[in-house]
Protein backbone atom coordinates (compact mmCIF):
# COMPACT_ATOMS: atom_id res chain seq x y z
CA UNK A 1 0.00 0.00 0.00
CA UNK A 2 1.35 3.39 -1.05
CA UNK A 3 0.76 6.24 1.36
CA UNK A 4 1.43 9.83 0.36
CA UNK A 5 0.23 13.24 1.47
CA UNK A 6 0.13 14.71 -2.01
CA UNK A 7 -3.02 14.65 -4.12
CA UNK A 8 -1.49 12.50 -6.82
CA UNK A 9 0.93 9.61 -6.66
CA UNK A 10 4.19 10.39 -8.40
CA UNK A 11 4.78 8.01 -11.27
CA UNK A 12 1.33 6.37 -10.97
CA UNK A 13 -2.15 7.14 -12.15
CA UNK A 14 -5.35 7.01 -10.10
CA UNK A 15 -8.21 5.16 -11.77
CA UNK A 16 -10.94 5.92 -9.25
CA UNK A 17 -11.55 7.23 -5.76
CA UNK A 18 -12.94 4.85 -3.15
CA UNK A 19 -13.59 7.31 -0.35
CA UNK A 20 -12.31 8.62 2.95
CA UNK A 21 -10.45 6.25 5.25
CA UNK A 22 -9.37 6.95 8.80
CA UNK A 23 -7.61 5.51 11.77
CA UNK A 24 -7.31 6.73 15.31
CA UNK A 25 -5.96 5.75 18.69
CA UNK A 26 -6.19 7.33 22.11
CA UNK A 27 -3.16 6.75 24.29
CA UNK A 28 -2.71 7.42 27.96
CA UNK A 29 0.67 8.33 29.36
CA UNK A 30 2.69 5.83 31.28
CA UNK A 31 3.52 6.59 34.91
CA UNK A 32 7.22 5.72 34.64
CA UNK A 33 7.64 7.88 31.58
CA UNK A 34 5.77 10.66 33.28
CA UNK A 35 8.18 10.68 36.19
CA UNK A 36 11.14 10.83 33.80
CA UNK A 37 9.41 13.66 31.94
CA UNK A 38 8.96 15.47 35.24
CA UNK A 39 12.74 15.47 35.72
CA UNK A 40 13.18 16.71 32.19
CA UNK A 41 10.97 19.68 32.99
CA UNK A 42 13.74 20.86 35.25
CA UNK A 43 16.50 20.93 32.64
CA UNK A 44 14.51 21.07 29.42
CA UNK A 45 15.23 19.33 26.15
CA UNK A 46 13.77 16.38 24.33
CA UNK A 47 11.43 14.00 26.11
CA UNK A 48 12.52 10.77 24.43
CA UNK A 49 9.94 8.62 26.21
CA UNK A 50 7.09 10.71 24.86
CA UNK A 51 8.61 10.87 21.38
CA UNK A 52 8.70 7.06 21.30
CA UNK A 53 5.19 6.78 22.72
CA UNK A 54 3.76 9.06 20.04
CA UNK A 55 5.74 7.38 17.22
CA UNK A 56 4.23 4.07 18.19
CA UNK A 57 0.74 5.52 18.58
CA UNK A 58 0.87 7.27 15.22
CA UNK A 59 2.00 4.05 13.55
CA UNK A 60 -1.02 2.33 15.08
CA UNK A 61 -3.38 5.01 13.72
CA UNK A 62 -1.82 4.69 10.23
CA UNK A 63 -2.13 0.91 10.38
CA UNK A 64 -5.83 1.17 11.23
CA UNK A 65 -6.29 3.56 8.33
CA UNK A 66 -4.50 1.09 6.04
CA UNK A 67 -6.68 -1.79 7.25
CA UNK A 68 -9.77 0.20 6.35
CA UNK A 69 -8.35 0.99 2.90
CA UNK A 70 -7.54 -2.67 2.34
CA UNK A 71 -11.15 -3.60 3.08
CA UNK A 72 -12.22 -1.24 0.32
CA UNK A 73 -9.73 -2.90 -2.01
CA UNK A 74 -7.55 0.18 -2.34
CA UNK A 75 -4.02 0.27 -3.74
CA UNK A 76 -3.03 3.56 -2.16
CA UNK A 77 -4.05 6.34 0.20
CA UNK A 78 -3.51 9.92 -0.98
CA UNK A 79 -3.63 13.32 0.72
CA UNK A 80 -3.05 11.90 4.20
CA UNK A 81 -3.38 14.34 7.12
CA UNK A 82 -2.54 13.96 10.80
CA UNK A 83 -4.10 15.59 13.80
CA UNK A 84 -3.32 15.27 17.49
CA UNK A 85 -5.63 16.39 20.25
CA UNK A 86 -5.79 16.22 24.00
CA UNK A 87 -9.13 14.56 24.62
CA UNK A 88 -8.80 14.13 28.37
CA UNK A 89 -6.23 14.97 30.96
CA UNK A 90 -3.35 12.55 30.51
CA UNK A 91 -4.54 11.20 27.16
CA UNK A 92 -3.89 12.11 23.56
CA UNK A 93 -5.78 11.17 20.44
CA UNK A 94 -3.80 10.60 17.26
CA UNK A 95 -5.86 10.65 14.14
CA UNK A 96 -4.85 9.96 10.54
CA UNK A 97 -7.12 10.32 7.53
CA UNK A 98 -6.84 10.23 3.78
CA UNK A 99 -8.50 9.23 0.54
CA UNK A 100 -8.34 5.60 -0.55
CA UNK A 101 -7.81 5.20 -4.28
CA UNK A 102 -7.53 2.46 -6.86
CA UNK A 103 -4.59 2.71 -9.24
CA UNK A 104 -4.51 2.02 -12.96
Amino acid sequence: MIIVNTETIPGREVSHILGLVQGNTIRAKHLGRDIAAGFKNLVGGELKGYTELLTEARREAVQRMMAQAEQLGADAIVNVRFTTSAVAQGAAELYAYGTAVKLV
Partner: protein
Amino acid sequence: MDTLIALIWQLIALPTAFFIGRFTERRHLRDLDERESRSGDIIVTNLKTIADPASVEGGRMVIGHVVIATDYWKSFATRMRNLVGGEMKSAQSLMIRGRREALMRLIENAREYGATEVYNVRYQFSNISMMRGSKGGAMQVEILAYGTAIVRRSQQIASP
Protein backbone atom coordinates in the same frame (compact mmCIF):
# COMPACT_ATOMS: atom_id res chain seq x y z
CA MET B 1 8.31 26.49 57.03
CA ASP B 2 6.72 25.39 53.79
CA THR B 3 7.35 28.74 52.17
CA LEU B 4 10.97 28.61 53.31
CA ILE B 5 11.46 25.18 51.71
CA ALA B 6 9.77 26.46 48.55
CA LEU B 7 12.06 29.48 48.51
CA ILE B 8 15.21 27.38 49.00
CA TRP B 9 14.01 25.04 46.24
CA GLN B 10 13.59 28.01 43.90
CA LEU B 11 17.04 29.33 44.78
CA ILE B 12 18.63 25.98 43.93
CA ALA B 13 16.47 24.93 41.00
CA LEU B 14 16.40 28.19 39.05
CA PRO B 15 20.14 28.69 38.56
CA THR B 16 20.72 24.94 38.06
CA ALA B 17 18.03 24.81 35.40
CA PHE B 18 19.34 28.02 33.85
CA PHE B 19 22.87 26.68 33.38
CA ILE B 20 22.01 23.09 32.41
CA GLY B 21 19.16 24.27 30.19
CA ARG B 22 21.36 26.78 28.41
CA PHE B 23 24.11 24.21 27.97
CA THR B 24 21.78 21.57 26.46
CA GLU B 25 20.06 24.15 24.28
CA ARG B 26 23.36 25.38 22.83
CA ARG B 27 24.54 21.83 22.24
CA HIS B 28 21.28 21.05 20.49
CA LEU B 29 21.54 24.18 18.32
CA ARG B 30 25.12 23.34 17.36
CA ASP B 31 24.02 19.82 16.45
CA LEU B 32 21.17 21.26 14.34
CA ASP B 33 23.51 23.69 12.55
CA GLU B 34 25.82 20.83 11.72
CA ARG B 35 23.06 18.54 10.44
CA GLU B 36 21.39 21.33 8.49
CA SER B 37 24.64 22.16 6.72
CA ARG B 38 24.73 18.55 5.48
CA SER B 39 21.09 18.45 4.35
CA GLY B 40 21.54 20.36 1.08
CA ASP B 41 21.15 17.11 -0.88
CA ILE B 42 17.40 17.01 -0.28
CA ILE B 43 15.01 19.72 -1.49
CA VAL B 44 12.16 20.34 0.91
CA THR B 45 9.06 22.22 -0.19
CA ASN B 46 5.45 22.65 0.78
CA LEU B 47 4.34 22.73 -2.83
CA LYS B 48 1.74 20.14 -3.76
CA THR B 49 2.46 19.67 -7.44
CA ILE B 50 5.49 17.61 -8.33
CA ALA B 51 7.86 19.02 -10.92
CA ASP B 52 8.65 16.79 -13.88
CA PRO B 53 6.39 13.85 -12.87
CA ALA B 54 7.61 11.73 -15.79
CA SER B 55 11.01 11.09 -14.18
CA VAL B 56 9.58 10.03 -10.81
CA GLU B 57 10.13 6.44 -9.82
CA GLY B 58 8.12 6.40 -6.62
CA GLY B 59 7.03 8.22 -3.54
CA ARG B 60 6.27 7.56 0.06
CA MET B 61 5.28 9.46 3.16
CA VAL B 62 8.07 10.47 5.52
CA ILE B 63 7.66 11.65 9.10
CA GLY B 64 9.82 13.47 11.61
CA HIS B 65 8.72 14.42 15.09
CA VAL B 66 9.96 15.39 18.50
CA VAL B 67 8.58 16.04 21.97
CA ILE B 68 10.45 18.86 23.62
CA ALA B 69 10.15 20.68 26.95
CA THR B 70 11.20 23.98 28.49
CA ASP B 71 13.57 23.94 31.45
CA TYR B 72 12.52 25.18 34.87
CA TRP B 73 14.11 28.56 34.33
CA LYS B 74 12.24 29.11 31.08
CA SER B 75 9.00 27.97 32.67
CA PHE B 76 9.62 30.60 35.33
CA ALA B 77 10.38 33.22 32.64
CA THR B 78 7.13 32.27 30.88
CA ARG B 79 5.16 32.81 34.08
CA MET B 80 6.80 36.19 34.60
CA ARG B 81 6.14 37.13 31.00
CA ASN B 82 2.45 36.44 31.54
CA LEU B 83 2.38 39.21 34.11
CA VAL B 84 3.82 41.94 31.92
CA GLY B 85 2.95 40.76 28.41
CA GLY B 86 5.07 41.09 25.29
CA GLU B 87 7.11 38.72 23.21
CA MET B 88 7.65 35.32 24.85
CA LYS B 89 11.22 34.56 23.81
CA SER B 90 11.57 31.46 26.00
CA ALA B 91 8.61 29.74 24.34
CA GLN B 92 9.65 31.00 20.93
CA SER B 93 13.08 29.37 21.06
CA LEU B 94 11.48 26.10 22.13
CA MET B 95 9.13 26.10 19.15
CA ILE B 96 11.92 26.93 16.71
CA ARG B 97 14.18 24.23 18.10
CA GLY B 98 11.36 21.71 17.90
CA ARG B 99 10.47 22.59 14.31
CA ARG B 100 14.09 22.41 13.18
CA GLU B 101 14.59 19.06 14.88
CA ALA B 102 11.36 17.63 13.42
CA LEU B 103 12.32 18.78 9.92
CA MET B 104 15.83 17.33 10.27
CA ARG B 105 14.34 13.96 11.28
CA LEU B 106 12.02 14.13 8.27
CA ILE B 107 15.01 14.81 6.00
CA GLU B 108 16.99 11.95 7.55
CA ASN B 109 14.00 9.66 7.04
CA ALA B 110 13.80 10.77 3.38
CA ARG B 111 17.54 10.20 2.91
CA GLU B 112 17.25 6.64 4.23
CA TYR B 113 14.60 6.07 1.60
CA GLY B 114 16.93 7.41 -1.08
CA ALA B 115 14.81 10.45 -1.92
CA THR B 116 16.00 13.68 -3.50
CA GLU B 117 12.94 15.83 -2.82
CA VAL B 118 10.19 16.08 -0.23
CA TYR B 119 6.88 17.64 -1.30
CA ASN B 120 3.88 18.97 0.54
CA VAL B 121 5.59 19.28 3.92
CA ARG B 122 3.22 20.17 6.78
CA TYR B 123 3.80 20.93 10.41
CA GLN B 124 1.53 19.85 13.19
CA PHE B 125 1.83 21.03 16.74
CA SER B 126 0.25 19.86 19.96
CA ASN B 127 0.73 20.85 23.54
CA ILE B 128 1.39 17.77 25.66
CA SER B 129 1.60 19.68 28.94
CA MET B 130 -2.14 20.30 28.69
CA MET B 131 -2.56 16.54 28.48
CA ARG B 132 -0.50 16.14 31.59
CA GLY B 133 -2.46 18.87 33.29
CA SER B 134 0.74 20.46 34.59
CA LYS B 135 0.58 23.96 35.99
CA GLY B 136 2.93 26.88 36.06
CA GLY B 137 4.32 27.75 32.67
CA ALA B 138 6.10 24.45 31.89
CA MET B 139 5.65 23.69 28.22
CA GLN B 140 5.90 20.27 26.64
CA VAL B 141 5.15 20.33 22.96
CA GLU B 142 5.08 17.76 20.22
CA ILE B 143 6.02 18.93 16.76
CA LEU B 144 5.35 16.72 13.77
CA ALA B 145 6.55 17.30 10.23
CA TYR B 146 5.36 15.13 7.38
CA GLY B 147 5.61 15.12 3.62
CA THR B 148 5.94 13.00 0.51
CA ALA B 149 9.46 11.89 -0.40
CA ILE B 150 10.18 11.41 -4.08
CA VAL B 151 12.74 9.16 -5.74
CA ARG B 152 13.77 10.11 -9.27
CA ARG B 153 14.55 7.51 -11.90
CA SER B 154 17.86 8.90 -13.11
CA GLN B 155 18.65 10.61 -9.77
CA GLN B 156 18.64 13.97 -11.56
CA ILE B 157 17.52 16.86 -9.42
CA ALA B 158 14.69 18.90 -10.87
CA SER B 159 14.08 22.34 -9.49
CA PRO B 160 10.77 22.41 -7.61
